[in-house]
């Protein structure tokens, strides 16, 4: 699709030729994830996580469709259909349900690694801005889907999570409260909310699948990035996706599924909250309302606003929480450095790892009960989050002196062999150069 040396599809079997002449679907697949897609030869294992996210989306859709066959979307039947019928009586229902529960967590784990890969290697930079933005759209849809899915078992955290999260809308002046009531179909989460959440929870994964196609399509125009951030120049820089990256993705997917299986079979409730095994009770508020772990950093940002500065604290919190994700859409223009890869950006690299630590701290603060020092830590970490993207990154990209880049991908791959071929001590590997994938 993207490079002149991309192998065209040549049907081997007459049936495939017949099909290809009428509907070039095999051609499309071959060009997208087959031998017809040239990929930089120096990708490291961080480039495996996009495919993994696709695998977990598939697991969620397949297990979810079967679960929906046994689920009752009613306020008095929902909890029992999940914890009674599905977990006890449906054949392998416990497996479907635990896979779906933990599949959601793993979908977020691999997506977070995928996003941070993009942040480090500058995958959001030209010409891949739209790939990045479509990815953020997928991420937002995932958050909406996961939130509504968590409401469906109608446990205590389902109910109170729905109460808190839909309560965000009431922070907006004038339209806020009517908007919240309209979205919920009532003054509090109830049957109307549960039914529409179920409907949307079933719909959105297919919307995600659609945006994933756009994400991959947009990616295939410039082709995949790589750890050096240097553009592909010649055929020597690339390998066909199949069999090279299918083999690499294949074994790594089996390995990640192994980790997923260990959690699903031996600690299925580790990532969940015990309160969700208590049926929803609108009259009893849990001691600590927390969302699922993948929302903790944003929950920490929301809770960090404690003073009414011109606007009410709650509105600040909601604006900051939405803003913390929306600002990522501006990232291609906030970071102006012509060098893509963080490997050649010494100052950027340090701030990047600071951001990783910052987000982990935010996650911890968001999931733990508040006390004086966690509140203060959360406020400091939230302040850094905004400063990092909106102040530090533009300044770094303007003033940083970057390391010299390799002239081509194959040169960066070759340095190892050059060192091997030369007598010891004569050739030193270039600083910041990246080893061959695998």
């Amino acid at each position, binding site marked *: 699709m993207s490079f002149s040396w991309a192998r065209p599809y040549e049907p081997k079997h007459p049936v495939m030729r017949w099909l290809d002449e009428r509907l070039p679907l095999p051609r499309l697949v071959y060009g997208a994830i087959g031998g017809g897609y040239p990929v930089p030869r120096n990708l490291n294992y961080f480039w495996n996580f996009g495919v993994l996210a696709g695998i977990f989306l598939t697991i969620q859709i397949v297990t979810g469709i079967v679960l929906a066959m046994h689920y009752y979307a009613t306020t008095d039947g929902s909890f029992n259909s999940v914890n009674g019928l599905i977990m006890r009586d449906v054949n392998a229902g416990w497996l479907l349900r635990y896979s779906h529960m933990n599949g959601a967590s793993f979908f977020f784990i691999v997506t977070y690694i995928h996003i941070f890969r993009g942040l480090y290697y500058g995958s959001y930079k030209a010409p891949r801005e739209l790939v990045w933005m479509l990815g953020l759209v997928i991420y937002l849809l995932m958050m909406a889907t996961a939130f509504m899915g968590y409401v469906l078992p109608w446990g205590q955290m389902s109910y109170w999570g729905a109460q808190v999260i839909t309560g965000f809308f009431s922070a907006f002046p004038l339209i806020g409260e009517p908007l919240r009531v309209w979205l919920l179909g009532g003054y509090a989460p109830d049957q109307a909310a549960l039914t529409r959440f179920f409907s949307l929870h079933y719909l959105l994964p297919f919307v995600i699948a659609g945006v994933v196609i756009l994400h991959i399509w947009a990616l295939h125009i410039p082709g995949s990035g790589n750890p050096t951030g240097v553009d592909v120049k010649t055929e020597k820089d690339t390998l066909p996706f199949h069999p090279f990256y299918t083999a690499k993705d294949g074994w*790594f997917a089996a390995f990640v599924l192994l980790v997923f299986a260990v959690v699903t079979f031996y600690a299925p409730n580790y990532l969940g909250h015990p309160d969700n095994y208590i049926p929803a009770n609108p009259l009893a508020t849990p001691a600590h309302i927390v969302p699922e772990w993948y929302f903790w950093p944003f929950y920490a940002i929301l809770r960090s606003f404690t003073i009414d500065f011109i606007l009410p604290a709650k509105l600040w919190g909601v604006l900051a929480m939405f803003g913390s994700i929306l600002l990522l859409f501006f990232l291609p223009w906030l970071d102006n450095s012509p060098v893509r890869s963080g490997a050649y950006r010494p100052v950027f690299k340090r701030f990047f790892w600071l951001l990783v630590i910052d987000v982990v701290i935010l996650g911890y603060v968001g999931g733990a009960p508040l006390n004086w020092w966690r509140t203060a830590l959360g406020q400091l970490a939230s302040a850094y989050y905004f400063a990092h993207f909106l102040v530090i990154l*533009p300044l770094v990209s303007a003033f940083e002196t970057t390391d010299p880049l390799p002239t081509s991908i194959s040169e960066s791959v070759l340095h190892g062999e050059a060192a091997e071929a030369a007598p010891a001590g004569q050739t030193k590997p270039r600083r910041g150069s990246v080893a061959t994938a695998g």
Partner: protein
Amino acid sequence: MRFILGFIGSVFAGILLISMIGNLSTYFGNKPAPLAAEEFHLEPRALHLKSDGPFGKFDKAQLQRGFQIYSEVCSACHSMKLVSFRELKGLGYNDAEIKKIASDWKTQVPSINPDTGEASTRKALPSDAFPSPFANEIAARAANNNALPPDLSLMTKAREGGASYVYSLLTGYRDPNTYKNEAGKPLPNEAKPTGTLHFNPYFANLNIAMPPPLTAEGQVTYAPGNPKPTVDQMAKDVAAFLVWTAEPNLENRHAAGIAVTVFLLIASILGYLAYQQIWHDAKRAVRITGPLDPENQAKSKRAKAKQGVAG
């Protein structure tokens, strides 16, 4: 645009830092006294069961003892709505025994008189869920000083600590007047239970409405061949039973888990070897066309000439 976004970022960060300074100065200006619930609350004592771990299986004799305690003690107040009599097969009872357990159950199942259509009750069948001791929440509260005994079906999954929590709570009742925490501090008067509440350091707010349910050795009579029914043993047995009620498919899960992990382990290893095999040629191709490639040789000659190295 970057200036506008930078300004927004500075505003957010500024407000957060001001809030942080405000919070810290409030805290240090007026340090709040620690709450009794923080000072006296205990984490559950670990309970190890045969069902723990990846190869764990239920101890059926223990589950039967636990079920006996549920039927003779807990079921007076606590419902178990998600569990059916037929599921008792998992405890090792046969069909006839289950039928008898169901029909002898002290509470009957709400029903309709087939002749008059009036509300009535009938004996439970194996297909019925355990009938609840109270008809509804109001009846349950009226009989329990306005406290609601929670349903026990999922208890070990619905509390932090699971079986260890149940075991610790059941054996954790203490005399509030003589109790001292690990630091040797006696319980302050404001944290002592009032009215019909009971002091228990394993309970979140220290004061629980449930009176000590297991009080004396021999409260239930175990069948011959079982351990002595001490309070500690009974608490362990009922905790084990509640692990089963919350997760009756645990043994299936453990067994399937072994098969799946072994399969994926082999798949990963074979996949990795296939990956090495496929990439081997690609790496060799790099090596052959690499330093010996005329283009690269010319480049290295130029570089050497520049540095004044011969060859």
